[in-house]
């Protein structure tokens, strides 16, 4: 059976174009808005074209895990709410939602974005747990990159709340102190459709993706996480090409974040 939609997309790509007239290596316009929720200790909204993702950080004072008594921790959760796409449904998180959460989590955790030791207040007794909740508001494609960017933007803005007597957290007042951020891992997705490699896929492109690579990248160009998805395999040359493109594009993403 001929897949007419795919044939059409490939015919456009063959001309070096995409259906919205972007080049293969062009992102849609990226915007970041900070402090979109005063309830959170840090928050941000990232839009990449029509894709819109909100991330909020809550800080909880808790006991350290027994195996890391002198460290705090992070938790990252992405909820694919039915609000943001006709493809998402109510109910327990889908495999895709869990994967998205875990891929963003791995990039931030393995990239050592936060100094866990500095999140510990008293060894074995109290530490901060940094909980990042990410909600796509409108899924117009490329949720991985948007979610990664939103998480880092929210972390950048996060300030510790005040601790009152008896270790009670006063969330109403900020201590003014920022989180101990020590690296800026960002996710960049490269997809393969036919023989073409493109970044920042929109909804239509995502439907036709043959293979996809999400790479977590640090400031120095080192990689901190990877996840291959999509139904087709990739050979070593293709993987290297995709990693190179991801490294190149994260430099641009970084500029948006530091504005």
């Amino acid at each position, binding site marked *: 059976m001929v897949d007419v939609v795919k044939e059409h997309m490939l015919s456009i790509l063959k001309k070096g174009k995409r259906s919205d007239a972007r080049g293969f290596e062009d992102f849609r316009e990226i915007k970041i808005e900070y402090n979109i929720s005063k309830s959170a200790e840090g928050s941000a909204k990232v839009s990449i074209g029509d894709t819109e993702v909100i991330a909020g950080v809550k800080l909880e004072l808790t006991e350290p895990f027994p195996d890391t008594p002198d460290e705090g921790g992070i938790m990252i959760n992405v909820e694919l709410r039915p609000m943001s796409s006709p493809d998402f449904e109510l109910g327990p998180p889908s495999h895709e939602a869990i994967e998205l*959460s875990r891929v963003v989590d*791995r990039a931030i955790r*393995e990239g050592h974005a936060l100094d866990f030791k500095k999140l510990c207040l008293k060894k074995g007794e109290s530490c901060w747990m940094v909980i990042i909740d990410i909600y796509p508001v409108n899924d117009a494609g490329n949720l991985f990159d948007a979610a990664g960017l939103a998480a880092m933007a929210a972390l950048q803005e996060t300030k510790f709340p005040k601790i009152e007597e008896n270790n009670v957290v006063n969330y109403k007042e900020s201590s003014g102190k920022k989180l101990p951020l020590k690296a800026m891992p960002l996710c960049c997705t490269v997809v393969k459709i036919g023989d073409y490699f493109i970044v920042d896929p929109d909804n239509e492109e995502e439907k036709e993706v043959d293979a996809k690579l999400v790479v977590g990248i640090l400031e120095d160009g*080192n*990689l901190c*996480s990877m996840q291959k998805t999509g*139904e087709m395999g*990739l050979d070593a040359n293709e993987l290297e090409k995709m*990693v190179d493109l991801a490294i190149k594009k994260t430099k641009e993403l970084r500029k948006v974040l530091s504005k």
Partner: protein
Amino acid sequence: MVNVTKRIDGRKQDELRPMEAKVGIIKRANGSAMFKIGNTIAIAAVYGPRELYPGFLQHPTKGILRCEYNMMAFSGSGDRVKPGGSRRAKEISLVTQRALLPVLDLSAYAGAVIDVFIELVQTDAGTRCAGITAAAMALADAGIPMKDLITAVSVGKAGGKLVTDLNYLEDSEEGGVDLPLAMSTRTGQVTLLQMDGILSKEELKELLALGKKASEKIKEVQVKALLDKFSGKE
């Protein structure tokens, strides 16, 4: 101090742990296999192609592959693994399905499903890779048309060196890298690739080469296990 010449268990950098494989271990299933690598033991069963219900899940022109990865409650080295599935297990189920799908030809099975169930009996890292390696043999045993077997192995960095087939101690090392890789050795297509830890682009290239070399050895074990069953030696 980490020993710089040998690994924790005395292996060379590119040395796999001892492997064993057996095909046809579950009689009720349409296909099945066991794969053991070091102290990690995975068993896989394939049921189907069978009709898929509810009907709206069916694909009009091809069969669907479903994979389920599970660690038996006693299979972890520390605490009991809570039964009922975790977020980790769900993600692994998803990447396992994608790792196997590229070599399968399901065009003859419109409206049907092929179910792959993977259970870990004993674990010492590399469980998703052992599961995929077992599942590929089970699919072949079930007679599903395949372009190649899929072999999976974890490569990475331990003790500051790039190594093949990490064990639990190496995998849980601070500052280490774990890169589970599945491939079709015939085409060189990588069908599973995940990574955590910090790695340069050059190291990635080396790890892909290490993974390819290891995959070829694993494939020999898979092929032998299949031949053992189908050449009537059993």
